[in-house]
């Protein structure tokens, strides 16, 4: 089933083949299947050195001394750098510059970079780093709210001067955001049913497959060229240049192939380090993390503890919600403040509640730093509020979907922030869609021959019974995610579009700094250019810093914002073409002046279809170019006391139905099917949209039943930095994921589209856990759900 309600007139331009709405194929697909696509870790340069990072074995320690002499004396080693060798700024950060480039006398988390080595072979660099003698004095660690805010707790960042320092209740709290609306206490007095719950989410890793890597090449002008896998070239640039003591124009960045991101490449990893070594040695330097190092090399999803209290009336209407969300930001701020804003403002979910009292905080601890990961604060909240919705439904003896339907928001609803949801919010419809899908057959392991196909059982080929203790459960969840950067951030993208004739054929060239990380932005840009300019051939230029910022490939924003910039740049080019045409041919035909003109099939036509001139004749050898910045409508910060404000530009919704089978004796879960319905506004590329939804859904499944970075609470050290012990879903763990796509246009967005990347990661996790609860009757307040939670052992 597909519902299309895109209002007429939203799609401008032509209907050229390969335009928006078609499942055109990736322009980089051929290179990616032949192995020729150059990822950042594939780069090579003559005379290149390999960089390696020495990291702290302790979560909190004072560095008494560092002796690099043995490392420097190792044959093949060209340089060793510590904090003392830094030429300029010594700290960086996305929002708060609190992260040392190399440890400055103190390490605050396990794996913090302490020193750099450059050598002619990666193994030489690794062995030399092991010869660096660091004398550590271990310090007590803070690992949770209690220890971080206890009297006498070590303050991790004394003397804070950042813009959140003034309003937080304790210096180990990065940011605090309350949301207060209505009168929750008064509403409680009118409430029939109250449920409370405490929930916990472990630390999830983005686990992108392409490790952090890049190549820095020193240039003759004293600058550096950096080829890098990142999510936002210009944000990197803004942080790297001060560290190198160079003006931004001397740090030239080009995007290399990016092997996935999911938020984990928003912060710097090895960018500044490679440039420092390259400028120090005068030689090209490549740094490639291995998987072990990657677990320390990027921020993770905030683990969270959430306490919720929901009230409802006997007729199944939510009366109030109180919540307290504590996010563990780890040692450095990263994007914790924005994650707090999201968790707080989206804490109630896609439901109508007039009276709310919410508080979200992020902590500084000695745990690994946490920041952006797909879902960004909304994932943690969704797990908790959806568990609460099921609990309330059970208390009220209502079907969980029916209870959600009675409280589902729709267009015009008011968020707890006071913001009116001013585009479609088909929450009830999405739930109806997933509920209406046929259920997968039961006991699929049973075969005609009698012996079970154990591959279809929880546990698969090993660790499995023959299905004796297997029970089935079905669970539902729905979520709400903001799209784009929020809270007053100037969120814009730049696009440069050129139209010219090459060998008699019109060709459009699109140049942006958008980081293609696998999501398919390059596919969509070409589609937009075809639609708007009516040409078949589009060239996508490599992303680099020779063009203005395209913002981050995160917050589900790239198709909306950089796509919007490409669309508007194309429109500007189109107007210039019409201008040229009027100049050259206007006197030949009155329609040039009077008719609505279109660019279609390489020709200028009237809206009635009459051909006025070929594009080649209009251009006559000239090229037409436009470059512009495009912004979505502005947002505003949340009030620091009440959380009120027009904080988000757009909302995105998805719902899931999970069907699970649980072996209650072995504590094993098999997700049998994970159906998703999502409103995408307008599917610019339906194949890619489905791929995003299935991929996001699977990451939510991983969080539900297997994925967690385990941090020892006594030492704050990471215990499982490998794919042997940090498990992500394999093809055997991942079920069929049927997808239902709704297209309800948002009139504020280009083509009516809605950012889609994150919403499916939200409701997937609570749907799976709801299904396990239904199968087992267990309360299950923590994810990932582990075998011992199911067997009670």
């Amino acid at each position, binding site marked *: 089933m597909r519902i299309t309600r895109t209002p007429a007139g939203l799609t401008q331009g032509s209907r050229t083949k390969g335009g928006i709405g078609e499942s055109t194929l990736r322009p980089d697909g051929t290179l990616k299947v032949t192995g020729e696509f150059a*990822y950042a870790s594939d780069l090579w340069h003559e005379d290149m050195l390999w960089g390696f990072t020495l990291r702290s074995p302790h979560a909190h320690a004072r560095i008494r001394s560092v002796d690099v002499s043995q490392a420097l004396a190792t044959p093949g080693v060209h340089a060793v750098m510590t904090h003392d060798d830094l030429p300029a700024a010594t700290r960086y950060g996305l929002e708060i510059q609190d992260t040392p480039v190399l440890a400055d006398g103190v390490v605050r988390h396990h794996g913090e970079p302490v020193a750099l080595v450059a050598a002619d072979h990666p193994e030489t660099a690794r062995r030399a780093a092991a010869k660096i003698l660091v004398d550590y004095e271990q310090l007590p660690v803070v690992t949770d709210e209690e220890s971080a805010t206890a009297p006498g707790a070590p303050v991790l960042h004394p003397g804070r001067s950042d813009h959140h320092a003034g309003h937080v209740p304790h210096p180990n709290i990065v940011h605090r955001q309350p949301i207060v609306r209505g009168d929750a206490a008064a509403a409680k007095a009118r409430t029939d049913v109250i449920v409370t719950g405490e929930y916990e989410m472990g630390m999830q890793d983005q686990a992108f497959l392409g*490790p952090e890597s890049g190549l820095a090449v020193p240039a003759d002008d004293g600058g550096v060229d950096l080829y890098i896998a990142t999510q936002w070239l210009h944000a990197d640039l803004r942080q790297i240049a001060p560290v190198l003591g160079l003006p931004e124009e001397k740090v030239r960045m080009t995007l290399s192939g990016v092997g996935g991101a999911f938020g984990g490449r928003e912060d710097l990893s090895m960018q500044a380090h490679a440039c420092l070594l390259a400028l120090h040695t005068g030689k090209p330097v490549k740094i490639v993390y291995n998987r072990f190092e990657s677990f320390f090399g990027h921020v993770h999803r905030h683990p969270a503890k959430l306490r919720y209290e929901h009230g409802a009336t006997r007729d199944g209407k939510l009366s109030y919600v109180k919540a307290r969300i504590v996010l563990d930001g780890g040692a450095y701020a990263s994007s914790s403040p924005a994650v707090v804003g999201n968790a707080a403002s989206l804490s109630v979910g896609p439901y109508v509640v007039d009276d709310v009292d919410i508080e979200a905080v992020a902590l500084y601890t000695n745990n690994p730093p946490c920041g952006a990961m797909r879902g960004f604060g909304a994932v943690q909240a969704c797990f908790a509020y959806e568990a609460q919705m099921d609990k309330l439904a059970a208390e009220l003896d209502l079907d969980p979907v029916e209870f959600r339907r009675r409280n589902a928001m729709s267009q015009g609803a008011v968020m707890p922030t006071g913001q009116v949801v001013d585009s479609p919010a088909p929450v009830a419809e999405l739930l109806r869609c997933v509920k209406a899908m046929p259920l997968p057959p039961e006991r699929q392991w049973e075969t005609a021959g009698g012996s079970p196909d154990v591959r279809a059982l929880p546990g698969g080929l090993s660790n499995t019974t023959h299905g004796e203790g297997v029970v089935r459960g079905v669970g539902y969840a729905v979520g709400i995610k903001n799209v784009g950067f929020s809270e007053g951030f100037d969120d814009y993208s730049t696009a440069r579009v050129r139209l010219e004739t090459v060998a008699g054929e019109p060709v459009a060239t699109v140049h942006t700094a958008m980081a293609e990380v696998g999501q398919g932005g390059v596919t969509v840009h070409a589609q937009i250019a075809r639609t708007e300019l009516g040409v078949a051939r589009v060239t996508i230029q490599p992303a680099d810093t020779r063009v203005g910022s395209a913002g981050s490939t995160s917050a589900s924003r790239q198709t909306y914002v950089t796509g919007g910039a490409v669309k508007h740049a194309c429109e500007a080019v189109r107007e210039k073409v019409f201008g040229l045409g009027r100049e050259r041919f206007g006197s030949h035909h009155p329609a040039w002046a009077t008719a609505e003109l279109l660019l279609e099939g390489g020709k200028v036509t009237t809206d009635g279809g009459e051909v006025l001139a070929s594009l080649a004749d209009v251009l006559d050898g000239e090229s037409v170019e436009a470059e512009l910045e495009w912004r979505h409508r502005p947002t505003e910060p949340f009030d620091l006391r009440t959380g009120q404000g027009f904080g988000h530009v757009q909302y995105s919704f998805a719902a899931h139905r999970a069907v699970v089978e649980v072996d209650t004796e072995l504590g094993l879960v098999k997700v049998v099917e994970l159906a998703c319905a999502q409103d995408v506004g307008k599917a610019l590329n339906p194949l890619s949209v489905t*791929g995003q939804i299935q991929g996001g859904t*699977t990451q939510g499944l991983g969080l539900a039943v297997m994925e967690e970075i385990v941090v020892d609470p006594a030492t704050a050290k990471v215990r499982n930095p490998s794919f042997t012990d940090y498990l992500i879903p394999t093809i055997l763990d991942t079920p069929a994921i049927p997808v239902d796509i709704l297209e309800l246009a948002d009139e504020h967005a280009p083509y009516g589209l809605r950012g889609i990347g994150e919403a499916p990661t939200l409701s997937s996790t609570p749907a799976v856990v709801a299904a396990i609860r239904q199968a087992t009757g267990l309360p299950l307040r923590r994810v990932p759900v582990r075998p011992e939670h199911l067997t009670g052992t």
Partner: protein
Amino acid sequence: MRVTFTVNGRPQEADDVWEGESLLYVLRERLGLPGSKNACEQGECGSCTVRLDGVPVCACLVAAGQAEGREVGTVEGLADHAARRAGGTSADRARQWRPDPADTVELAPVQRAFIDAGAVQCGFCTPGLLVAADELLEHNPDPSDADIREALSGNLCRCTGYEKILDAVRLAAARAAEGD
């Protein structure tokens, strides 16, 4: 040490190989074949899957010296390998022709299917999956979904949720059956 072996049907020689180097490192850094990927270097993700005398292995877990005198097949040789196996121009290869010059690269049917089915997103897992899927289809031209899942269970993908990868293998199998 020097390692002499065959890669994608061509004799190769790597000099000054340190004893600790993996086959993956030699392919990527010494022979200029970076198609096999370095996602975990722990034998867990399958992104470096190559064929060693026809058997799929994680190249990161094979010491370079172990490849001495043997035949290695990587993603870069997949199209040639498929063409030799087919013994000529198959219907599928004929259908691959595209007017766009960027699309006229010779591809193995499984490579074409991965593109067409949308099984490629970031693409980092793709080379390993292609080698594994090609090997599966070589000995099992009509695999069930359970067969596909079992054969590809050693290859992690973080982007797609695997649905489109299943689609791609089914598509490659269906096209091969149609072309028979």
